[in-house]
């Protein structure tokens, strides 16, 4: 059964039709790619799923439950985590605290618990810390826990963003161009990391990517968007031979040739 399904989703910004009647379905524990030229509406799909935008029409379901109209933090709590195309870490917090912020969702406590120093506040805070440290160690970021994210090299910032997303213990992980700005060596590492994490955390992963090597190594199924419309879907090989996809990327004359 599909974990995530979008049915006939559209998003219009006044006159601009960012997404038109897009349907996709992501089976549980699969890795699915979304590709397409710049401005095709790939990130808009993520913004609809995570509740940052509300679709103009259409339905979005996670495991059969409707997500439309829910605030983003509820959707995050329901098991959807994401990373951002332009890395959005919390600059004022340390590496550890960035991950703790997401960990704290599953061990929530409130103002009164803190003000009264209730025992479960300490216990939960300890759990949050140890879970966050485990996760950082797992992603080889443990040594850097007291650094500010801004001091990390780009590749590690990307990895920290993945760590923070995983701290939500999501069922569905949305990765928005995880390979952007990485060198070929880092790309190899990233591919292995995503495959390993998907296995270890029983994740369903949707990733937006321009780098074909990442999509080819990881995704069984690929959706292709162009100008807000779904123009093709299938396995990587099918999609690469599809004349509409070649046309969208390289221009129509190449597709005809």
């Amino acid at each position, binding site marked *: 059964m599909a974990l995530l399904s979008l049915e006939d989703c559209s998003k219009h910004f006044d006159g601009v039709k960012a997404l038109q009647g897009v349907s996709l379905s992501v089976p549980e524990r699969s890795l699915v790619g979304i590709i397409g030229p710049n401005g095709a509406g790939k990130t808009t799909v993520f913004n609809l799923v995570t509740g940052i935008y509300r679709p103009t029409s259409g339905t979005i379901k996670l495991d059969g439950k409707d997500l439309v109209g829910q605030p983003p933090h509820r959707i995050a*709590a329901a098991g959807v985590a994401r990373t951002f195309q332009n890395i959005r870490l*919390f600059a004022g*917090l340390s590496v550890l605290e960035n991950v703790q912020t997401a960990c*704290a969702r599953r061990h929530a406590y409130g103002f009164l618990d*803190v003000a009264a120093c209730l025992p479960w506040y300490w216990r939960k805070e300890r759990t949050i810390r140890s879970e966050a440290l485990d996760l950082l160690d797992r992603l080889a970021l443990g040594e850097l826990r007291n650094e500010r994210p801004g001091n990390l090299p780009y590749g590690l910032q990307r990895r920290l963003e993945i760590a923070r997303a995983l701290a*939500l213990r999501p069922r569905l992980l949305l990765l928005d161009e995880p390979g952007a700005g990485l060198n070929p060596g880092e790309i190899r590492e990233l591919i292995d990391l995503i495959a390993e994490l998907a296995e270890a955390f029983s994740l369903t992963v949707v990733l937006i990517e321009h780098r074909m090597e990442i999509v080819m190594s990881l995704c069984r199924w690929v959706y292709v968007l162009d100008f807000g419309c779904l123009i093709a879907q299938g396995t990587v090989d099918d999609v690469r031979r599809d004349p509409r996809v070649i046309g969208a990327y390289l221009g129509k004359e190449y597709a005809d040739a």
Partner: protein
Amino acid sequence: MGFYSSLTVFTGLTVIAVMGVFVLTGMAGLFSFGQAAFMAVGAYVAGLLAIRMGLGFVPAVLAGVVASLAAGLLVALPVMRLRRDYFALATFGFGEAIRALLNQSVGITGGAMGLFGIPVVTQPWMVVGAAVWSVWLVRTLKRSALGRDWQALKTDEIAAEAMGVPTYRRKVEAFLISCGLAGFAGALFGFYTSYVDPAMFGWFRSAEWIIILFFGGINSITGTVASALLLSALPEFLRFVAQWRVPLYCGIVIATINLRPRGMFGDWELSLSTPGEVLKGVRRRRGLAQP
């Protein structure tokens, strides 16, 4: 009311109120130019209950805090949905409105003449105790999940929401804590001076608290406390140049922005391990540290 006693009380009350501003502005990144009005609510409600209904000191102070929380909630619920810049404007408006209300309702509050005859109960040691407690509270909050949520939503609200932070709720909470602490300071203030009038709680006082915060460093409780002690005590000693108070603040603002935009203390916090770290630094410099 000796000089040092009143200096201690006024400085302590500023520390309490500024700790509230630290939560709201320092951690959650929201600017309010109406926080002094919530101090007024605390002072008037506690004072009126004591005068008119003969309520004791502790219940009156509690009632003052509850009243400023209620007033805060009334403001927060509609205003917190606004963008941050509009939030600053709206709180400014609400603050001045509360002050106008106190001025106009002469029959209850005494209007611009002020409210007389609040029993003098507050002692300097109480204020020092309350200030220490409020610093402890805010320090604990900063290290808790709430503190992390506030700092996260300050840098990036969309990312914070995507990581499950209920941003609207957290912002309302930050505002209420700030209002509660301002109301607490106000209630203690009334019971010390025995007289309050609306002019004491204008927007300038709110702005002064924000200046104190920025001078000390918006990310540092240590810096904020140090700056509160310095900036609220200094003008008392410089009474003979009282007319220079406003230019002094303006100078501080300009100097802070240009010379130390992150405040005197930046992100630095005093902690129990600080003496150890200093010692380690000294050893390293002398080449004594073990690898």
